[in-house]
């Protein structure tokens, strides 16, 4: 099969000594980032992205994606040992992971979490290996109208499937679009919303927004709990690992279910965080004793971790093939690809085979290496967190500031980062979702370009978006998702009226 031979070629690219080195560094950095609050997956990749500009793109993306894996693994460590989710997608892991640790079963919980992550990611990478070329070939038929329809679908599904009230999702998304529009308009050459400030010429960089929102914002949020990290200890020895693995085999149904949820949420833009919650909820509903969830049921660790990793990994599939990131971190990686001059989308698989298959091969390797590294180094990470917050917090702030500065060597960006930090704090507290804003910031210019190109082709007619079955069905689906919450509201009103009528 074509894919297998491409994959073998990719392994050849990935298994060179420098790239293996980058893989290790990436995973170690990633776990560290995942473990520390304020340095999340999206944020950490954003900070390190400018530093990779001098590396060749293949090595750079290998390292960055390994940082991503590391962060996916690392979030579980703090969730289980400290009841502090290191990442938003590890929140669900705290529900049963921490009680298990309190019972002295920390090693089992950690092994279960890491193995679940491994399985979830592995399935997702297999999906990518076989689906990506198919999807890419399919996407070659896409014109500007189809691309815009897919982007529209992405944004509408955020509004439709978000837990938060639609008004807030729309507000967050529109803010992202507005920020993306600031600066030079590439089509007409006009300046938009710069109000005479030359520093706004290049617009707002999504990297600064990500570092501010997810970095500084996270630190401000964490401060509410005070400055203490008290956690359980854990030592993982080989015997515990084997025993736990035996236990895990019994839960194969949970694995399958979680992998499906995860892959679905990764490909449709949802990401690892909603995937973990959805999977946890499903596992609890389908379990024979739901009350045991929240008390330390190992399934409560398996379900969210598998789903989160499957989602986080499969989010790269639409990113590579269609240029649509399925998660905020994938959005940052997409931004990175654009900066390196690589256009994600179907042409990537045709023109940059080395890069794409090297990346996919490194996903397999990174996953295996990550699992081994993380199983063996847990006590080290637990020790890192024992460093008092009074020392770690300022260091994280310094890292964020340096990260923001190195993007464009601009002091203004550091100030902007603080502003975004405040925005992130308030948005999170008031339940405005951040992901749509980040996505809009990254995709805003592209979506607008697709729309304008489509308009050029159709001479100004909006009918191009229903002109053929492909575009029409995508657009139709997008509008359906957009109106979904409205449908829910109407149904609720109807039921309330029925109940009132029945009562009177």
């Amino acid at each position, binding site marked *: 099969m074509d894919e297998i031979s491409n994959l073998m070629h990719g392994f050849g690219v990935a298994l060179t000594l420098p790239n293996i080195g980058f893989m290790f560094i990436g995973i170690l950095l990633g776990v560290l980032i995942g473990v520390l609050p304020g340095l999340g997956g999206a944020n950490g990749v954003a900070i390190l992205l*400018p*530093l990779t500009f*001098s590396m060749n793109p293949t090595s750079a993306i290998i390292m960055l994606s390994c940082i991503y894996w590391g962060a996916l693994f690392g979030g579980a460590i703090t969730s289980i040992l400290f009841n502090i989710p290191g990442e938003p997608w590890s929140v669900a892991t705290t529900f049963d992971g921490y009680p298990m640790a309190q019972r002295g079963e920390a090693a089992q919980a950690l092994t279960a979490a890491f193995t679940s992550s491994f399985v979830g990611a592995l399935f997702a990478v297999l999906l990518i290996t076989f689906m990506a070329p198919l999807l890419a070939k399919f996407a070659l038929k896409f014109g500007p109208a189809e691309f815009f329809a897919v982007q529209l679908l992405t944004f509408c599904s955020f509004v439709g499937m978000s837990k938060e*009230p639609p*008004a*807030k999702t*729309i*507000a967050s998304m*529109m*803010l992202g*679009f*507005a920020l993306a*529009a600031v600066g030079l*308009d590439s*089509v*007409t050459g*006009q300046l*938009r*919303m710069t*109000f005479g400030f030359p520093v706004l010429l290049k617009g707002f960089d999504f990297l600064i927004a990500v570092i501010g929102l997810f970095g*500084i914002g996270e*630190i*401000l949020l964490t*401060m*509410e*709990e*005070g*400055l203490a990290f008290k956690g359980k200890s854990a030592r993982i020895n080989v015997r515990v690992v084997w025993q736990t693995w035996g236990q895990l085999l019994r839960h194969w149904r949970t694995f399958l279910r979680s992998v499906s949820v995860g892959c679905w949420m990764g490909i449709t833009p949802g990401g690892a965080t909603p995937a973990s919650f959805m999977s946890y909820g499903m596992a609890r509903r389908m379990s024979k004793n739901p009350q045991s969830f929240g008390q330390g049921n190992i399934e409560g660790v398996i379900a969210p971790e598998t789903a989160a990793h499957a989602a986080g990994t499969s989010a790269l599939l639409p990113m590579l093939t269609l240029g649509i990131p399925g998660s905020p971190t994938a959005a940052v990686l997409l931004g990175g690809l654009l900066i390196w001059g690589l256009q994600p989308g179907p042409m990537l698989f045709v023109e940059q085979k080395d890069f794409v298959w090297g990346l996919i091969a490194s996903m397999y390797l990174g996953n295996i290496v990550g699992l081994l590294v993380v199983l063996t180094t847990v006590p080290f990470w637990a020790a890192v967190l024992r460093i*008092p*917050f*009074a*020392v770690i*917090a*300022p*260091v994280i*702030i*310094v890292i964020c*500031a*340096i990260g923001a*500065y*190195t993007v464009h*060597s601009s*002091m203004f960006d*550091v*100030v902007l980062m*603080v502003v975004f*930090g*405040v925005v992130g*704090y*308030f*948005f999170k*507290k*008031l339940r*405005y979702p951040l992901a749509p804003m980040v996505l809009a910031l990254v995709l805003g210019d592209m979506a*607008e370009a697709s*729309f*304008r190109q489509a*308009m*050029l082709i159709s001479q*100004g007619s909006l009918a191009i978006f229903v002109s053929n079955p492909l575009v029409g069905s995508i657009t139709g689906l997008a509008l359906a998702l957009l109106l979904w919450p409205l449908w829910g509201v109407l149904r609720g009103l109807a039921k309330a009226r029925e109940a009132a009528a029945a009562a009177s």
Partner: protein
Amino acid sequence: MSDSSEEAGGATVSTRWPEIVVAGVLLAAALLVMFDSVRSGIGWGDDGPRSGYFPFRIGLLLAGASVAILIGQLRVRSTQVFAERAQLSMVIQVFVPIVVYVALIGWLGIYVASALLIAYFMRRHGHYGWALTAAVSVGVPLVFFAVFERWFLVPLIKGPLEAWLGL
């Protein structure tokens, strides 16, 4: 989860005012966007939408969403808790140093400012002795200096101290 803010008196802050302020700020931003877009032209040009076409509609949607949120907040007496006053005070205690830190970067350079930030945190919140504080707050920026200036060759903002040392 909603906490009643009637009990515990002034110990908690309800979400009402923060919601109204944030929605108000978003509305202001939306109006700003729409205002500027009108200047760039919001209709259709010879070859497609004019420069302000998209931003204007984006501003419109943002304004609509903000107004919806504002109305929602003004109508319902919100009993949800934003934060306890103690928590807010902790947040302010971190936020103000961050603002001062960023202000100092432009003036003293990032390395010196970072040393001061770390020292401040270690003394004020960690209650460490001067020796350890000095060691860490000078050591960490030195490590960063080595990593960024020498290894990655990425120059960061320097201030009077570095100029005096001839770096």
